[in-house]
């Protein structure tokens, strides 16, 4: 059976060159980078080479990169780290309603520690409004954390403009760039941010490694304590094979970015056109300020998990913001924040493109999806009603 992986927003296959670099590291340079001897020095060199490559990907200096166990830890380190370090200055933090749970849940946990959190709303395209941000900033605001691009609907925020306002106000600016670093141009100095999170497994590197960019001079408490690794900001023996893999992935992404971005954008646009041509299928997110790899549609009268299962039987891997896939009781907080009603969020489908996808993959998806929608709608009690015109139309 044809297998078409369209869940690159969740994770990506590991690039063969990345695997090669990791194997070489584990086979030939297994030392502990903290050790005095030659095994340690070799390991240390690999560590620092990887740091340079990751720094280059986002226009940073190597000494501003702290390796973490992934995007989640990077987000937590940034948010807890700055909030606690700046506590004497203020206890107010601003974030947005469409952040990843790594950011939102960290902010909620800070609330329990006595911090005040403002969660900015977004418009129907998932965009934060500048006026809302301006209105929310207070003298005691120490940190603003707003993601670069959203993982579900792909909307890209105007981080440069946001950061300018935040910095003018004297607060610290963090952005979760897990979905952008390596996928669209990201430069910490262009953006102006103080902190930026990235993750390896979204860009063809291994899972379990990420980084936090920390602009020189930014105060931050560590989350964990122990050895003096990573300038005391993140102790523990470094995940050397993972870091080496991340470094190699960053190198490849830096090299291939322009070409891949235009190729992805073309495939994405074809996929969006094809899917939204199906009756009562609507694009979620922004039509242009959008990740090149992201397609997200709501398909009325059907539920996302059953759609994913049927796609899976046809070899197609996607994801959904349906409550039934979330393990919790609610559909995607991102879709809800964009004002999409529960029952429509239930029928959302996210397809995220990657390096391995071809035009033929898109053809296959556009052949299979309409058939499956047809089948599921035929089973749906909501679709009946629609024919009887008792349903509220999609706005």
């Amino acid at each position, binding site marked *: 059976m044809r297998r078409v992986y369209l869940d690159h927003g969740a994770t990506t296959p590991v690039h063969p060159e990345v695997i090669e670099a990791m194997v070489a590291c584990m086979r030939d340079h297994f030392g502990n980078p903290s050790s005095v001897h030659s095994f340690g020095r070799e390991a240390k060199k690999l560590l620092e080479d990887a740091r340079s490559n990751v720094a280059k990907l986002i226009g940073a200096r190597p000494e501003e990169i702290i390796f973490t166990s992934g995007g989640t830890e990077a987000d937590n380190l940034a948010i807890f780290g700055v909030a606690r370090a700046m506590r004497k200055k203020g206890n107010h933090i601003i974030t947005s309603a469409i952040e990843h749970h790594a950011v939102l849940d960290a902010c909620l946990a800070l609330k329990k520690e006595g911090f005040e959190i403002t969660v900015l709303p977004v418009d129907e395209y998932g965009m934060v409004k500048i006026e809302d941000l301006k209105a929310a900033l207070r003298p005691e605001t120490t940190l603003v954390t707003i993601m670069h691009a959203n993982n579900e609907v792909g909307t890209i925020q105007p981080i440069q403009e946001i950061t300018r306002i935040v910095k003018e106000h004297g607060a610290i600016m963090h952005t979760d760039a897990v979905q952008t670093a390596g996928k669209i141009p990201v430069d910490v100095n262009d953006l102006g941010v103080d902190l930026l999170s990235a993750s390896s497994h979204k860009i063809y590197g291994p899972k379990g490694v990420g980084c936090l960019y920390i602009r020189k001079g930014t105060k931050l408490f560590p989350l964990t304590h122990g050895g003096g690794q990573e300038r005391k900001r993140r102790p523990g023996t470094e995940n050397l094979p993972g870091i080496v893999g991340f470094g190699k992935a960053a190198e490849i992404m830096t090299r291939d970015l322009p070409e891949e971005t235009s190729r992805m954008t073309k495939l994405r646009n074809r996929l969006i056109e094809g899917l939204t041509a199906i009756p009562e299928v609507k694009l979620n997110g922004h039509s242009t300020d959008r990740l090149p790899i992201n397609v997200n549609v709501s398909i009325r009268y059907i539920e996302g998990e059953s759609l994913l299962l049927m796609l899976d039987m046809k070899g197609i891997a996607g994801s959904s913001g349906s*409550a039934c*896939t979330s393990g919790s009781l609610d559909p995607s907080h991102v879709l809800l924040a964009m004002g999409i009603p529960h029952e429509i969020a*239930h029928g959302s489908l996210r397809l995220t493109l990657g390096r391995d996808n071809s035009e033929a993959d898109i053809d296959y998806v556009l052949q299979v999806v309409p058939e499956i929608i047809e089948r599921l709608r035929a*089973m*749906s*009690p909501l679709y009946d009603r629609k024919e009887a015109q008792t349903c509220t139309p999609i706005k």
Partner: protein
Amino acid sequence: MYTDKVMDHFMNPRNVGEIEKPSGVGEVGNPTCGDIMRIYIDVEDDIIKDVKFKTFGCGAAIATSSICTELVIGKSIDEALKLTNEAVAEALDGLPPQKMHCSNLAADALHKAIADYKAKREDSKE
């Protein structure tokens, strides 16, 4: 995640559709995740002759709907009323823990359809 039996009933659901002049109709919405099931029954001499369903929900919801129709066709309404959510899940060789609530959909909708049938019968007697 799902047993082979769940996947079979999900991919090849039995008795999907509607009954034109049903003896009873039951509809439940699962308040926990917003899913909906509607069941139609055709009853003759208190025996369920036919059942059809329509479901908006996850793989477990569709599979439990399907097996539920199979379990009660040919049964008396009294027997059908004894069908429990657990029995439905068991007939599918089990459901993942986070999906147990989906099995409520089917049995509840069936019981509602039977109640509807009984109410209609009372009405017609009067």
